[in-house]
């Protein structure tokens, strides 16, 4: 039975719950916008990285750097799209 529950995955799950609880701090504590958004950015991106490495097995084959490269490149493009648009439409720069 215990071989069905590998330590790595259980630790990954516990850590993802801890990150969710940490993100909830912005709801229950009285933080400023800058503090709150910093907490959310850190918890969300660590959570995403955790899923990618622990659960999606991104780094276990020979093409791991192509997979990581592709995903990081796309995240980069996504961030440019999001922040570029915010810059023009919301922050009036």
């Amino acid at each position, binding site marked *: 039975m215990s071989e069905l529950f590998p330590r790595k995955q259980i630790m990954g799950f516990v850590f993802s719950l801890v990150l969710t609880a940490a993100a909830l701090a912005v709801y229950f504590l009285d933080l400023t*916008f800058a503090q709150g958004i910093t907490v959310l950015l850190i918890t969300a991106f660590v959570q995403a990285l955790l899923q990618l490495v622990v659960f999606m097995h991104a780094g276990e084959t020979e093409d791991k750097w192509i997979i990581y490269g592709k*995903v990081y*490149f796309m995240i980069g493009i996504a961030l440019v799209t999001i922040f570029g648009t915010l810059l023009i439409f919301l922050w009036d720069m």
Partner: protein
Amino acid sequence: MKIDHSLPLEYSTKQNGLNIFGFWVFLAAEIMLFATLFTSYFTLEHRVGGGPSGTEIFEITPVLMETLILLTSSFTIGLGVHAMRIGNKKAMTAFFVITLLLGLGFLGLEIDEFITYIHEGATLQTSAFTAILMLTLGTHGAHVTFGLFWGSAILMQLKKRGLTKETANKSFIFSLYWHFLDVVWIFIFSFIYLKGMM
């Protein structure tokens, strides 16, 4: 086809490896799909017109339940893939069934959430904010719904054909899709709900 026994079953042939690689290309495109939705959301979130704002309609309890359910389902499908790799088809099937049931629970909560919003006067046509909110949540919800059908089909194939290099490959690719939906939800949870309620 040449079978390499040093690799897990889902990677055992050249074709299998390529299928998994191709799915990562698809996921990279999906990142961009959701990025454009987030872009529009951040641009339009304050354009509430005469309708309600996020602070007024978001509720922490159902959102937190949806998050915990989806996180747990991501964990159980991870255990399913692990069971598949040690060749335990029975445990694998059980974990996949649990995952799909959790996905169904998530979908039920999300449908209930949409009904609540509509009763509170936040429909697709109320304001730019409610339109982009429902479009973003709906796109994620549609992905989960598709995943439920896809996962069920894979379970049927697994029952009929057993654990072969093809079914193992399909199951692994489905697990990638499911984890990806969990990652997207984390961003929805953080930057739509929690940010909106901050």
